[in-house]
């Protein structure tokens, strides 16, 4: 991720536009990216500041490139680099050694006179001799631990110019979010992924159903309800790649402007950002996958939608595996309990109990059922694969609860 100092945003009509390199307008950046990658790939052993200077030089005659963009490129390249950091403190030890030797000759003058006879070059030569190393080498090592002077050890790099540039675009989006206060998401799918990553980023959610399989989620942190805070900006930035990997969403974040106003950062899955996270898996288990494939789009008036609704109470959420919607308006959720550990099953049971007033049909493997459990109407059992027939029967018999 970038630092705030590398963030470039434009504010126009209360909208925030983070810097974005476009396929056409910035076609020539492709070549820049390749050159930057090769500077680093060929730069093993060079100092950080030398590498940065080379990158900067590339853009010398480029009209369209702010300094912050160059700094951001360097940061993204450094993120994939390992530098020699002198963890044993060799440079510090050398400094103390050299400075202690030199102290008695202070001040080192450029020219000898009657009062001062210790000439800079003579003393340096003398110390070099004592340490049995040429002075140039000593001087090179003297501040080798300072960040700018560290030498490149390894460069992992990016898979190519195009990945590097798309990483840049995402990084600028993330950096713009450092100043975000809340994030509003309208989603029509991939709810599990969105909610799971929001929770991982320690964000709180507020969920509103705005239509069948349509949800509005507002993300913020504990403090946000009390006053404006930037505390959760980093969390939004961390969360973003997960959102970019999802489908069927748009998002609007409230961003604080430098002149203390607010602006919006709007984004959707159509904006062509690619996440470095993989797309969410379509199915949690093979039982689910096999069932969905066999069921097809519709049977006996029931349409099957994967992870189509969110059940929620305060900060607990539950996205059942499937929703069945009947032509006549009936709607039944189904959760397939897989073959899992007893702990997992207990946890699942607790969640289901919490939302027992919702219309949930449970599919449970026979082997997980204790013998003394009375089979309820809203439970179907299965051995290895879930049979369509038993599910459709259960659906037809399901008593819809109305609140």
């Amino acid at each position, binding site marked *: 991720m970038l630092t705030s100092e590398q963030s470039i945003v434009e504010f126009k009509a209360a909208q925030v536009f983070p810097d974005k390199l476009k396929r056409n307008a910035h076609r020539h950046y492709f070549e820049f990216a390749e050159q930057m990658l090769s500077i680093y790939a060929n730069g093993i052993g060079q100092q950080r500041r030398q590498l940065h200077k080379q990158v900067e030089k590339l853009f010398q005659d480029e009209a369209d*490139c702010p300094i912050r963009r160059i700094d951001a490129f360097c940061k993204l390249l450094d993120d994939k680099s390992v530098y020699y950091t002198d963890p044993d403190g060799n440079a510090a030890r050398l400094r103390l050694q050299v400075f202690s030797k030199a102290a008695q000759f202070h001040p080192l003058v450029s020219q000898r006179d009657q009062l001062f006879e210790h000439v800079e070059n003579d003393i340096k030569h003398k110390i070099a001799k004592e340490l049995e190393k040429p002075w140039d080498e000593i001087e090179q090592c003297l501040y080798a631990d300072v960040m700018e002077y560290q030498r490149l050890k390894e460069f992992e790099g990016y898979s190519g110019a195009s990945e590097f540039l798309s990483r840049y675009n995402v990084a600028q989006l993330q950096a713009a979010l450092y100043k975000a206060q809340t994030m509003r998401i309208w989603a029509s799918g991939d709810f599990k992924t969105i909610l799971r990553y929001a929770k991982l980023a320690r964000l709180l959610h507020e969920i509103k159903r705005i239509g069948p399989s349509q949800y509005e989620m507002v993300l913020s*942190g504990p403090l946000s309800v009390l006053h404006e805070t930037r505390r959760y900006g980093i969390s939004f930035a961390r969360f973003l790649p997960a959102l970019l990997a999802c489908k069927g969403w748009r998002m609007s974040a409230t961003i604080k402007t430098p002149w203390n106003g607010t602006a919006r950062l709007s984004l959707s899955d159509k904006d062509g950002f690619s996440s470095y996270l993989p797309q969410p898996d379509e199915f949690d288990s093979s039982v689910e996958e096999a069932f969905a494939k066999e069921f097809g789009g519709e049977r006996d008036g029931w349409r099957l939608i994967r992870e189509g609704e969110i059940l929620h109470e305060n900060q607990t959420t539950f996205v059942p595996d499937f929703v069945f919607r009947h032509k006549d308006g009936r709607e039944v959720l189904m959760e397939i309990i897989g073959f899992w550990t007893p702990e997992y099953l207990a946890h699942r049971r607790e969640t289901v109990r919490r939302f027992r007033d919702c219309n949930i049909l449970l599919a449970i493997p026979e082997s997980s059922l204790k013998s003394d459990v009375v089979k309820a109407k809203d439970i179907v059992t299965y051995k290895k694969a879930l049979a369509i027939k038993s599910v459709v029967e259960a659906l037809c018999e399901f008593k819809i609860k109305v609140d």
Partner: protein
Amino acid sequence: MDFEGKNEQIILKWDEGTLLLDGWPSDNTPYNMGIWRWDSRVGNWRCDAIYYQRIKEKLSQTANFRDEVMQPASVHWPKVDLPTLRPEQSEALDNWTQSGRRGQVIMPTGTGKTEVALAVMAQTKTATLVVAPVRDLMYQWHRKILKGLGYDAGIVGDNTFDIRPVTVTTYDSAYIHISRMGAGFGLLVFDEEHHLPGRCRREAAILSTASMRLGLTATPERSDGLHKDLDFLIGPVVYNMPFRRAKGSTLADFDVIRIPVALNDEEQQVYSQCSRIIREYIVSQREENPGYNWQELCKETGKDPKARHAQKAYHLKTSIESRAEEKLRVLEDIFRLHNGQQTLVFVGSNAMAIEVSKRFLAPTILSHTGKKERLAVLDGFARGMFKVLVANQVLDEGVDVPEAKIGVVIGGQGSTRQAKQRLGRILRKNGGSQATLYEVVCENTKEVHRSRSRRRSDAYERTIHRRV
């Protein structure tokens, strides 16, 4: 044990820098206190942790109330070894205690603010979080707590996260981690408190339940006026010792000598060229837009290559100003003139510090300098083995430096506070003898203006102008 049923139990809980009131009905603001907000996301009332004391007083009158907020541990100091306070220090301590153990103490640098804070800690004997501006100061607090109170404090910052009942940290780390560690401290000490009211950093005070708070500074004012909020964040000013009073008594007298240096021909040429580029660009922009200024230029650097050119020219100018070769020559003259005297050299950038260090083989203290090296360098300087110590902004505030009579400022920005702090550094009581601060600035550059603004501070009233 309460048997009236779960629903009526009212529980106050800590939640990441806020307090949650569980069990209070949503349609009725607790005690009509405007500090509460209903948080529908979790189904509880919520407020900032800073109000903890007020809430507790109210709620303790309520039946079925349970307080689950972590309480500060009491601290036993293994070995108290503190100096007797001077009259002004005791006055500050007494005023703070009498004003409900909340408030700000304003004393000039070098008059023993830290000693007041340690006396406060010795007296309050409660879990304490000390917040300092930079990690050097954080380590310095750690050493002083160890020396004065015999306590090995925890450290949060500098890639360490080690919370103990008494912990030292920096403003940046406090801001980041306060939502984790804001409960459990009885006393907060804000060193150089003028760093606290910033839009983010203030959360270090707001997200903590500590009832006792002490702020320390020589210079509370902020140019953005936010220092007014310190009353809320810490408490009222309980003691204010003016700079003038300090100067004649506990601080030594000092001279300020400004040495203008000329750039060499090449530098001057590049410098003038850069100035011309910037001037011409701004003039050309003002033809269309009379109010055009530097900020607008910076905004346009992405689109307009000329604007970027002008910005680059500006950066080049700045680097010429701070790195002029001539400054190294002047430095040599000062070293010759004060041979045998301890001399501190302040520089504006790491690069310049390293240049001076390599030229004179003098030790440096930079922002990244490790603990061990720092101690060795400061100790070597205190013992007089090292005659010169080169430092960047790190030493600007509050870091205790061994006595020196000669200070040299090279580069640096012209804020009043920095000037006071830097002066304080070399003007520590040093046997009553005269101290001298040299300012080495480039002639005909904007550094001269900075030097002027630096002198506007009352500490600079007796500046002497001298050409070397």
